C-alpha cells in the first residue's frame, strides 16, 4: 500500500473500494449498550477500526450556579481521543480539534433531547476514542446518542450519523483513512434525526461541486438510516427483552415507571 502513490490509486474499481466495500456500504458497525456500570447510560461502538466508548451522567445540577439555564438543560458533550488512538501519540491535553468537535456534537445532541424538561441541570456526555481510522466524530456521536437513550433521557429521536464524501472522483459512504487521504478527498460528517431527516450536524472539508454535494447528501442520509437501524437494534437487545419481562411482572404501571425509556427509541 505504501508503495503506491496516492494519485495512482483507483479508489473505486469495478464497483469496489480499496477495502472491498461498495460505494454505499458502511464499514462493519457494532453497538453495545450499557457498558459502564457507574454511568447513568453508556454505549460502546466499533465501526471499522474505530472503537468508541460513551457515557452519560445526568441530568444533574449544573454548577457553578451561574452557568444554569432556567429554561433548559445544558448538554455538555466532551469528545476525547486516547493518546494511543492515533499513529503519533496525541498530547494528553485536549486540542482545539477536540474542543470544536465537542461543541458541534453537544449542539447536535441537544436538538435530540427534550432539554426544556430539565431546567438548571446539565447532561454530561463523555466520548472516548480508543482506536481510530477516519470518522471518529460520527462514531462518537452515535455512541453518545445511544448512551443518552440508555440513561433514560427523554428524546425526540436518536441522532444517527455517518461520514460521506469523495475520493478519487467518486462519491462514497463512510470514508476510511486511506480514502480520506486521497488527493481530492472530501469529508462530510453528517448527523440527522432520522424520523424527520432534520440535519443536526454538518461539516465539510474539500472541494466539491453542487452536483457532487447533492449526490453526497443523498447517500449520507441513506447511510444515517442504516446506522439508525443498528442503534435501535442495540437498544432493543438490552431493553426489548427487559421490557417484555417488566410487562409481565408489573402490569399497568410499567409505562409510568419507565416513561423515559419509551420515548427515546422512536
Amino acid at each position: 500500500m505504501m508503495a503506491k502513490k496516492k494519485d495512482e490509486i483507483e479508489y473505486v474499481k469495478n464497483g469496489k473500494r480499496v477495502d472491498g466495500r461498495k460505494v454505499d456500504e458502511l464499514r462493519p458497525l457494532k453497538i453495545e449498550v450499557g457498558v459502564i456500570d457507574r454511568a447513568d447510560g453508556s454505549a460502546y461502538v466499533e465501526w471499522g477500526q474505530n472503537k468508541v466508548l460513551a457515557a452519560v451522567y445526568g441530568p444533574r445540577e449544573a454548577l457553578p450556579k451561574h452557568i444554569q439555564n432556567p429554561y433548559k438543560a445544558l448538554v455538555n458533550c466532551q469528545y476525547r481521543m486516547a493518546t494511543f488512538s492515533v499513529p503519533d501519540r496525541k498530547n494528553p491535553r485536549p486540542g482545539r480539534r477536540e474542543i470544536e468537535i465537542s461543541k458541534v456534537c453537544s449542539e447536535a445532541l441537544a436538538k435530540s433531547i427534550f432539554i426544556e424538561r430539565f431546567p438548571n441541570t446539565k447532561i454530561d456526555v463523555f466520548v472516548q476514542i480508543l482506536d481510530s481510522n477516519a470518522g471518529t466524530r460520527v462514531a462518537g456521536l452515535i455512541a453518545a446518542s445511544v448512551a443518552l437513550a440508555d440513561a433514560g433521557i427523554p428524546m425526540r429521536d436518536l441522532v444517527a450519523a455517518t461520514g460521506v464524501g469523495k475520493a478519487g472522483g467518486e462519491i462514497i459512504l463512510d470514508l476510511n483513512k486511506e480514502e480520506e487521504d486521497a488527493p481530492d478527498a472530501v469529508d462530510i460528517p453528517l448527523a440527522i434525526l432520522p424520523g424527520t431527516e432534520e440535519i443536526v450536524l454538518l461539516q465539510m472539508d474539500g472541494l466539491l461541486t453542487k452536483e457532487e454535494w447533492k449526490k453526497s447528501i443523498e447517500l449520507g442520509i441513506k447511510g444515517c438510516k442504516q446506522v439508525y437501524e443498528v442503534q435501535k437494534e442495540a437498544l432493543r437487545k438490552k431493553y426489548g427483552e427487559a421490557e417484555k419481562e417488566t410487562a409481565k411482572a408489573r402490569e399497568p404501571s410499567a409505562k409510568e415507571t419507565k416513561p423515559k425509556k419509551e420515548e427515546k427509541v422512536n
Partner: protein
Amino acid sequence: MDDVIWDLRVDSAVKLIKEGKRIDGRALDEYRKIDIQNHISETAEGSAIVNLGKTRIVAGTKMILGTPYPDSQDQGTISVGAELFPIASPSFEFGPPKAAAIELSRVIDRGIRESKSIDFKDLCITEGEQVWIVFVDLYTMNDDGNFFDAGSIAALSAMLETKIPKVEDGKIVKKEYSGKLKLSKKPLLCTFAKIANKIVIDPTLVEEKAQDARFSVSTADDKHLCAFQKGEQGSFTRSEIDECIEIAFKRGKEIRKTL
C-alpha cells in the same frame, strides 16, 4: 435591564423576519455594507480591518520560518487564529480561548485551507529543512454579529497583500521582501441564520441571539464549495441547506469581484 432590552430587540427581529423583513431594512439574502481598509499595520506582512455593518475585525499576517512536518517535507503551512477580544463586546472576557473562539478560528481556517488557494509547496524554502508558516491572526474589534464572514474577508484581504520576507542564509532579512503570497482563489465564507424557519444571511448580533441554527458555507470559487459548518442547537432541512448553498455562490461571486 440590559437583558430586557435585548429580549425586546430579539422579539422584534423575529417578528419582522416572519414577515420577510429585517430590522435594518435588508432583504433576507442581503449582506450589510462591507468596508475594507488594507495595510493597517506596517509590522505585519499583510493586514486589513473589515467593517461588516458595525461589526469590525482586524486581521494581520506574519510569515515565520519553521521546519516542515515529517510527512510533508516539501510543504509549508498556514495557521488561522481568532480571538474574541474583549475590546469588542461587554460579554467577551480574557482567558484561554473558549469553544466559540476555537470554532470561529477553525471554520475560517478551513474555509481558506480547503479551497487549496494556497499551494503549500509554494511555502517551501529548502525541502526537509525550512518552510514558511503563514500565521493569520484575527482580533475582534466590535461585535454586531457574524464574525465568521467578517473574519473570513479580513483574513483573505490580509493574505492578499502579504509580502514574503527575503531569506538569506536561512534567516529573514528585515524589511526586504522576495515577493507576495500567491493565492490561486479567493475563498469566501457565507453565514446564514435560521430564524423562525426562515434563512437570513449575514446575521447581526440581535439576529444571532434570535437564531435557532447557524450554517456557514465556504465557496472556493464560483463553482466549488470547500467547507461547511453547521452550528447551534437547531436543525436544517435539506432544502434549507440547498438554499444556503445557492445564495452563498451568488453572494460569494459578488464579493469576490470587489477584492
